């Protein structure tokens, strides 16, 4: 393109200068003369928001170099040759600028020309903004709180109170003991306290008792269940793929359990992150570290786009979206950076160039979401154990088969077995290679009349027969040949199989389905022959004379047209059975051949019926068995052995069956990463420069480049994990302590918990945030230590009532924390609280999630929700099997987010449909009924006692006299369940002070 423009310029140049307004005859000042012209006329389309034609005119670097078609648009020193001047002067009829609004005046063009002719000087830092001069990118500094000297004062309170005092505000008094107790329970474990737990704390709410309660709750296994929910929101965890075909991820839960366990164990946060990003690379033999990488796979995955579609364009797009999701999740969760904004162009607000976005993509380029074994060594052990048991069972089966004269199943032998059921159903022998073949095969054209030996005791080999060859068709390794068979088309289809051929029209002959249990089926498509070696069979069966029995049938479709096939059997190359023109009307062919002691080989052959066409020539042998022709009578000892033998075989079968399936987890599979290229304007079909793995250069002091493309997948992710958790990374610790603050107070010190960039909020208490971040590092990245620090502060223990008119007017949003924020229970806590109060909460921890839906297998599976009214559906909400595209509507009504999105902060809405759900949903009504049963059981028949107990369970307090009167009246008129139902709907139940 540059070439074209240059040509245009050369040709037109002489005329051009004459057509242009003359340059201004004075020294121009960029800031005074030029920038205002750009700002008024150009930047709407070529500024921070839009870059039409890929051109951006508000920054020196891009203004002087950029543009899709005419770059550079500005040629310093040569205004008459600068495309920008041509465009604004209207010389190029296809590119008049500005494209909307008034054209520039001659004077303005003159100024631009003069500026360009004077070298287009563009002072650095024109806007005075150094993008790196941003609080979150600077190292965090540990500032001592102003009067930290005061003994026993939580430094958090000092920071908070200094800022309150600055506005003439004071903190609120401490909340009462009941409120504090309830607040701590919901906040730390997500469940309400029992009335007895409240009473105990109200009796002794000393500092020591408060600290003891905090320690008790942090040590409770429920702590992990509560706080894992917050982390899973950030990971947009769900138990299905999402997208059009929303299939199940039956083993995703192991990652959910890992988070719960890691939090309960207070795994240091840096290690918590490292394992989730690169656990499999750091400790491949540690199942827990492998499971941790479920984090990277937690988001949606487009099965159709990534796998099902044949279109490479769609596949590349789906994969680009997939990587984007992973990169976005990791960087926003750990660092609060919105790197995804740099996918199509440099980040508009933060100093993140597009190439660094793709450097991060390169970190994950070797990672794919998928099911994997949790423990490879364990899988091998299990496999060895299974093989050992199968061998033992096989030997016993041979023994039994001989005693009962079952004989040997030729289909099983074709499937790689010993003739007694150890073969693999569906497996077969490749006609061309003689090797084991599992998957389906298309049309084959191996050289005809070449006998291919097959490994294994009972099969001699296979051949594609063609009677055209006068020399005959070889049918054994000993050189036997058969002659007199018809000429064939010389083609074969699929393998000789232990089971139906792919695709087989029918597996039935008459009424018998030979694919059903208790039968066997040997599929032999024309043109092919297989020769069995009888010598080892005689040894196995301990009999000289043998007998071959089978039912032969046609397996093609019912209307194959003219096509048909021939069936031939040979004993040592001599024809023993022939049936020509076999088709759907042939019916049943019974084969019963005696194989004399002298015979060595039995050959089964299918040919194409001399029509040269193999279409639908599907011949199969039902229950093909070779057994002893005259079994020796059993001795008494042998007879006595039969039953124990059977029992032992059955035992072994049970043992094999009960071997646990190796544990799987939906996590990641890895490969050597392909080369990643910057995608121009985010378009996967427009790849440009290579992007080597790396991170963000705006975080100074840490190497942003990890190395070249030779780095392995493991090296890349370990490098990123180290970069993120490096003590010098100023983002990671700030982000997590802010998240903790957000969940404890309802709003973070930075109110955009996953965006610490220039588009996000600024910290309300920057020094406190830094102090917390440093304290966190000093305390070994212990989350529990930070919880303890925060919830023991006076700031946290304040009342939540908004009764201070002055404070309301100065800081109505409570950013300065002059009171505690009251909190609406989130969807999960509300559901858990209902179950807890009704007495039905099922405390079972861990394992596959509960499924409160009926599942129907379809192209796009159908998830139909049911009323969760069984104990196994009354587990804590963290164990809910989360369906991505069919959200649980009751939970959604309570603001449970869609797991398509990363959710750093829940929306809290108050809607009509939400109130209706709490009032009328079947689950709520049933639980209100159980709540009433519980109250009755615990308080007897007295209506007042019932009212008191119901209040105690729901609110952790006694009703006052008026409340008790109203409650009693309601119970007397309409029954206890109606009272319980209404209590579960009160603001007092749904809000935590």
């Amino acid at each position, binding site marked *: 393109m540059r070439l074209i423009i240059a040509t245009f310029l050369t040709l037109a140049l002489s005329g051009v200068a004459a057509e242009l307004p003359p340059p201004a005859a004075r020294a121009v000042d960029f800031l005074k003369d030029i920038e205002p012209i750009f700002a008024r006329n150009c930047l709407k389309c070529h500024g921070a928001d839009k870059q039409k034609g890929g051109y951006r005119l508000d920054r020196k670097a891009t203004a002087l170099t950029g543009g899709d078609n005419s770059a550079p648009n500005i040629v310093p020193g040569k205004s008459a040759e600068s495309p920008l001047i041509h465009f604004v002067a209207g010389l190029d009829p296809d590119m008049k600028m500005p494209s909307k609004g008034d054209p520039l005046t001659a004077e303005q063009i003159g100024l631009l020309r003069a500026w360009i002719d004077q070298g287009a000087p563009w002072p650095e830092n024109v806007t005075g903004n150094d993008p790196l001069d941003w609080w979150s990118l600077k190292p965090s500094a540990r500032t001592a709180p102003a009067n930290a000297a005061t003994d026993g004062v939580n430094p958090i309170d000092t920071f908070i109170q200094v800022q309150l005092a600055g506005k003439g505000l004071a903190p609120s008094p401490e909340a009462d003991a009941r409120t504090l107790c309830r607040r701590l329970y919901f906040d730390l474990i997500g469940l309400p306290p029992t009335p007895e737990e409240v009473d105990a704390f109200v009796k002794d709410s000393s500092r020591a008792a408060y600290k003891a309660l905090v320690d008790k709750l942090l040590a409770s296994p429920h702590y992990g269940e509560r706080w894992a929910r917050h982390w899973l929101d950030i990971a947009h965890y769900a138990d299905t793929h999402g997208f*059009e075909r*929303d299939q199940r991820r039956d083993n995703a839960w192991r990652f959910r359990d890992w988070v719960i366990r890691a939090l309960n164990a207070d795994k240091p946060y840096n290690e918590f992150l490292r394992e989730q990003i690169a656990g499999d690379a750091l400790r491949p033999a540690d199942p827990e570290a492998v499971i941790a990488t479920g984090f990277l796979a937690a988001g949606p995955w*487009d099965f*159709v*786009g990534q796998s099902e*579609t044949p*279109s490479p*364009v*769609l596949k590349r*797009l789906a994969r680009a*979206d997939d990587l984007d999701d992973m990169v976005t999740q990791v960087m926003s969760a750990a660092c609060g950076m919105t790197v*995804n*904004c740099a996918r199509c162009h440099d980040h508009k607000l933060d100093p993140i160039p597009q190439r660094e976005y793709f450097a991060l993509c390169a970190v994950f380029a070797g990672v794919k979401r998928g099911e994997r074994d949790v423990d490879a060594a364990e899988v091998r052990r299990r496999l060895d154990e299974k093989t050992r048991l199968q061998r033992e069972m096989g030997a016993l089966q041979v023994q039994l088969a001989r005693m009962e004269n079952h004989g040997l199943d030729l289909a099983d032998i074709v499937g790689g077995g010993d003739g007694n059921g150890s073969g693999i159903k569906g497996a077969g022998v490749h006609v061309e290679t003689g090797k084991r073949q599992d998957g389906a095969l298309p049309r084959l054209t191996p050289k005809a009349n070449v006998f291919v030996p097959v490994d294994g005791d009972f099969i001699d080999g296979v051949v594609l027969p063609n009677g055209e060859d006068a020399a005959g068709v070889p049918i054994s390794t000993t050189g036997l040949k058969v002659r007199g068979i018809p000429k064939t088309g010389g083609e074969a289809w699929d393998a000789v199989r232990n089971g139906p051929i792919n695709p087989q029209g029918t597996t039935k002959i008459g009424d018998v389905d030979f694919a059903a249990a208790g039968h066997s089926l040997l599929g032999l498509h024309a043109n092919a022959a297989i020769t069995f070696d009888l010598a080892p069979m005689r040894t196995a069966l301990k009999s000289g004379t043998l007998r071959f029995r089978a039912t032969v049938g046609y397996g093609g479709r019912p209307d194959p047209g003219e096509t048909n096939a021939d069936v031939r059997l040979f004993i040592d190359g001599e024809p023993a059975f022939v049936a020509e023109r076999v088709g759907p009307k042939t019916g049943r062919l019974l084969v019963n051949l005696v194989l004399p002691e002298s015979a060595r080989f039995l050959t089964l052959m299918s040919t194409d019926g001399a029509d040269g066409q193999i279409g639908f020539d599907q011949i199969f042998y039902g229950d093909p068995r070779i057994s002893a022709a005259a079994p020796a009578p059993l001795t008494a000892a042998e007879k006595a052995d039969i039953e124990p033998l059977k029992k032992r075989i059955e035992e072994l079968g049970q043992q094999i069956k009960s071997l646990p399936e190796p544990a799987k987890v939906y996590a990641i599979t890895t490969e050597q990463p392909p080369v990643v290229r910057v995608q121009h304007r985010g378009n996967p079909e427009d790849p440009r420069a290579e992007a080597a793995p790396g991170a963000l250069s705006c975080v100074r002091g840490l190497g942003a480049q990890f190395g070249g493309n030779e780095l392995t997948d493991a090296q890349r992710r370990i490098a990123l994990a180290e970069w993120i958790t490096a003590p010098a990374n100023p983002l990671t610790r700030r982000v997590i302590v802010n998240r903790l603050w957000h969940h404890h107070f309802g709003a973070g010190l930075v109110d*955009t918990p996953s965006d610490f960039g220039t*588009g*996000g909020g600024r910290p309300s208490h920057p020094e406190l945030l830094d102090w917390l971040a440093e304290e966190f590092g000093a305390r070994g990245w212990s989350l529990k230590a930070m919880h303890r620090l925060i919830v023991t502060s006076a700031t946290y223990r304040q009342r939540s009532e*908004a*009764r201070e008119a002055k404070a309301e007017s100065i800081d109505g949003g409570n950013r300065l924390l002059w009171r505690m924020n*009251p909190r*609406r229970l989130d969807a999960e806590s509300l559901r858990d609280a209902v179950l807890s109060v009704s007495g039905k909460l099922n405390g079972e921890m861990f394992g596959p999630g509960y499924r409160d839906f009926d599942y129907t297998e*379809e*192209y*796009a599976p*159908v998830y139909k929700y049911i009323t969760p009214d069984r104990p196994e559906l009354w587990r804590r909400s963290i164990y809910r099997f989360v369906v*991505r*595209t*069919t*959200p649980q*509507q009751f939970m*959604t*009504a309570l*603001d449970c*987010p*869609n797991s*398509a*999105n990363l*959710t750093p902060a829940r929306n809290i809405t*108050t*809607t009509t449909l*939400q*109130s*209706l*759900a709490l*009032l009328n*949903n079947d689950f709520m*009504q049933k639980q209100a009924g159980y709540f009433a049963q519980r109250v009755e059981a615990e308080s007897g028949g007295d209506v007042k006692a019932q009212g008191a107990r119901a209040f105690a369970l729901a609110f952790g307090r006694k009703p006052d006299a008026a*409340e008790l009167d*109203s*409650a009693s009246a*309601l119970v007397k*008129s*309409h*029954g206890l369940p*109606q*009272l319980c*139902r*209404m209590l579960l*709907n*009160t*603001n007092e139940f749904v809000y935590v002070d």
Partner: protein
Amino acid sequence: MWTDPSRRQFLWQLGGGLGGVALTSMLSRDGLLAAEPVNPLAAKPPHFAPKAKAVIQIFCPGGLSHVDTWDYKPELERQHGQPFDAELGKQTFAGVAGNYAKSFWPFRQHGECGRWISDLFPGLARHVDEIAFIHSMQSKSALHGPAMFMMNSGFIRPGFPAMGSWVTYGLGSANENLPAFVVLPDPRGLPPGGVVNWGAGFLPAVHQGTVLETATGKAPFADLFPAQPVPANAERDGRDFLQKLNAAHAAARADSLLDARIASYELAARLQLSAPEAVDISAESDAMRALYTLEDADAGPFGRQCLLARRLVERGVRFVQIFCGAENTGSKKIRPNWDSHEDIVRDHGYWGRVLDTGASALLTDLRERGLLDSTLVICTSEFGRQPFMQGGQKGRDHNPGAFTAWLAGGGVKGGVGYGASDELGFKAELHPTYCYDLHATALHLLGLDHEKLSYYQNGIQRRLTDVHGEVIRELLA
């Protein structure tokens, strides 16, 4: 059974009695409420004077073939039977392209504008002077799920708010006694991608589409009434008790969030009154029943959805989305939506009659009631279909390269077309456009500037139109 007369009586008692309905005003009179609570769906002023007040969007999932319906291609008739250059078709879904095939229904000119419509739509053809067509629509995906998401939310990935959610976020509701964004899925089931198609994404949950249950014997909205029946007086006394407790609790705390929750129970009671009335079509005249062919076994259910849409819009519902087709649930006798891979005559023939009957009745009805000027009707699909046969079959494959959407009413100029696909209908050629321009235009007609209607999410001021979108001025009256 919400239609049960005793239930109605119960409701009126509830409305007439205290039942929470009158409580807010009573509380406020007694000084027990801190402030007038904020209804998240309260009507908000638009950015500029709107032409349309409401939207009815008819969505035809599966991929409606433009070359058999709205987009007349004489050249395709000439090329009929000629092989397609397979290399051009590498992005199609199933991959194998057969021969070019002309429309299975002849095209004719209609109306004063003389635009060409195929014989599949005789009813809609009579409305052609009211309709504005966009013939150069494209999608970024050839897969149902992502393309559905794109047409509904502007993004091929799930998790973004639907157009209806954006509209209610921008304008609120004109009737706080009904949901602002109502969805009527096909009675056969949900469309591809399921409920995510009308999800609120990251917008507050109040903006998600509320599914209208149209099966007889069911309440119109989930949880509208107690799952287990509760006697009317018990309900009334219970709600009184609840609101008294709430009022005392709120009085001690002075927090507007608590007041809003009190008010939501009042609104809930009002919704219980207004929703059953809104969907009760028993009072509709015989002429109306005939117009919407309610008794027709095939077209009747969709006609009923269209009639309900009109009733909802009449009552101030801001955005109604009707699905004309469901998810692909295996190939039955007739496909459950427009996804006509094997047999276009069979499947488009069936669905064409369904759409034509209901949609033309809707346009007629809206016009006769004087509602068409203030109601924007949009009809679209997630993509079109190919001008050639799929392999050796009698159907057409997906075509994200070109399709047609149309708008009517609500300030739209009738009888016009914008953009064009190439002479065969394979790719958009003149003014190629994505859903962004359609969305920008729809918002514009509602008085909303698509560049200003935004919501902060994880670092970005998100918009329905992402970073794209131009209002298509050629379609404005």
